[in-house]
């Protein structure tokens, strides 16, 4: 028997648990030369704002250790171009398309949804209320649970489409934001967006990115992301999409074990756009070896019953 990779995020069903994270796969088509979307559970687009945003001053990226700091500042084509030029072509992208939405005000989010409601080839929205690289809105929204709830509620009223709220880890208690998103009517929560981070060039005594601080992502954030997913899993009932530092099939299992129903891969795609396909192959193999019929069976199965669980010696 072939094990199942399918997963469910409430009303959104995906063929496998691996989605691409916003900002790391363009609007859906850009990687088509080198990777086939048929291997993806879904694509979350670059965040779309009501109008075109140009983004922050360069430099916008700094590699640090095995992580990345970015300060793109949500440079994107804007909702109108997305709707008229890009969305129609997404028909040929064979996977679920989730449009990420960004804004400076709650009205902005409503505006984008209103613009996109009658666009085709969209399977849902992810509300990016967690970007650390914009002066207004962004991360500040998901740092405040009452704004989170209000924002999700207002978007919820405008659409029947699936909605996820994407949360920032730069908070004291992420589960409060997750509960607020749930109360607001979100179908799922996505976490984590990037951590506020900084890199300095000691020679010139300058910040390595122009905005001084930026968003930290990649393998170093994985332990933090896992802890956040676990915290949220113990607080909400809606499904969780785990994000942060995923580069291997084992990472995917870890996120699912602590409670994620699906995951998103971000930074690692720049290095290997074919990573989702490779990971899914290995997941199938693992499920076969372990005789697990469906990957969904492992969601939230962390064993917490063994206080003295000495790992070594084998």
């Amino acid at each position, binding site marked *: 028997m072939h094990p199942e990779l399918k997963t469910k995020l409430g009303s959104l069903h995906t063929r496998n648990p691996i989605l691409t994270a916003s*900002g*790391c*796969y*363009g609007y859906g088509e*850009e*990687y088509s*030369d*080198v990777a086939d979307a048929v291997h993806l559970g879904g694509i979350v687009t*670059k965040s779309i704002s009501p109008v075109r945003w*140009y*983004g922050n*001053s*360069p*430099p*916008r*990226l*700094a*590699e640090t250790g*095995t*992580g*990345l700091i*970015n300060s*793109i500042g949500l*440079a994107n084509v804007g909702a109108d171009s997305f709707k008229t030029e890009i969305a129609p072509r997404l028909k040929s992208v064979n996977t679920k398309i989730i449009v990420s939405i960004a804004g400076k005000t709650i009205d902005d989010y409503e505006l984008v949804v209103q613009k996109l409601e009658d666009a085709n080839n969209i399977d849902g929205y992810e509300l990016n209320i967690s970007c650390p690289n914009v002066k207004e809105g962004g991360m500040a929204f998901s740092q405040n649970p009452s704004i989170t709830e209000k924002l999700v509620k207002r978007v919820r009223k405008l659409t029947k489409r699936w909605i996820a709220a994407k949360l920032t880890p730069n908070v004291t208690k992420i589960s409060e934001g997750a509960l607020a998103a749930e109360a607001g009517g979100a179908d799922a929560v996505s976490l984590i967006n990037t951590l506020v981070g900084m890199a300095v060039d000691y020679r*010139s005594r*300058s910040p390595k990115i122009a905005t001084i601080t930026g968003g930290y992502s*990649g*393998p170093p954030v994985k332990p933090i992301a896992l802890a956040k997913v676990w915290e949220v899993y113990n607080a909400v009932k809606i499904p969780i999409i785990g994000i942060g530092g995923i*580069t291997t099939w084992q990472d995917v299992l870890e996120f699912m074990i602590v409670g994620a129903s699906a995951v998103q891969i971000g*930074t*690692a*795609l*720049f*290095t*290997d*756009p*074919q990573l989702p396909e490779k990971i899914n192959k290995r997941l199938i193999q693992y499920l076969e070896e372990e005789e697990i019929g469906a990957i969904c069976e492992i969601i939230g199965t962390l064993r917490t019953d063994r206080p003295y669980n000495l790992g070594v010696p084998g």
Partner: protein
Amino acid sequence: MKFIDNARVIRNHKIRQDIHSMWLESPLICQNSSPGQFVHLRVNNSFSPLLRRPLSIGRVHGNELELVWRIVGKGTEILAEAKEGESVDLLGPLGKPYSISEHLETAILVAGGLGLPPLTYLYEKLIAAGVKTQLLLGVLNENSIPLSDKDPLFGSILITSEEGELFRRGLVTEPVIDSLQNLENNGGIGKTSLYSCGPWGLIKALKKIVPHMKLLSAEVSLEQQMGCGIGICQGCAVPTEDDNDPFQLVCKDGPVFPLNEVRIPDAS
């Protein structure tokens, strides 16, 4: 069309202290590339280093392409250890190449240090196309020439060096000015293009010289920290002088830009 190709290492050797040259077999990339484009390569199979590294496509001979790089950090260091027969994961060809006008008669190629590789590719292509082409290279000293003395191309390059006695002493901009002035005097300037790749200092100097000449075109190649290398992440933006379109992407709109569109960074 872009490809991810596991290109076989044909040869990987040190040219000088810290400067390496590698020939790779990649029919897909060789057959689809033009001078000025680059590859974004993975130095190993892990995610440490995290990102791919961009390197200009150097000379292309048949199905083989050359990369030449200076070791500056862990990525370029690991790459220097790749053995013959191993494979290197290349994403490419990427970016916009140097543009070659149909009216082009004379080409002046100005390299600063490690800016040489894309210009050796361009040089061979232009020579083959019958364009009168001059390749100039400015280096600090003998140790920073990114080409072996024994390379057949070596003799064709006019090298200036800021230190040392072996080459014309001075900045590469001096022979550039000489050549341009000659061309202006003999009326050829209108069918001449200038192509350059090198550090900001060189670009700045060219920005001072070129506007006074009526060249067919003048293009330079830029570098910027990259994420994706293909126009997705918006990470490699550089500012333009145009407020209505304030940024361009080195990986997609460049790395080759018209010299007059390039904005010099505040810090340099």
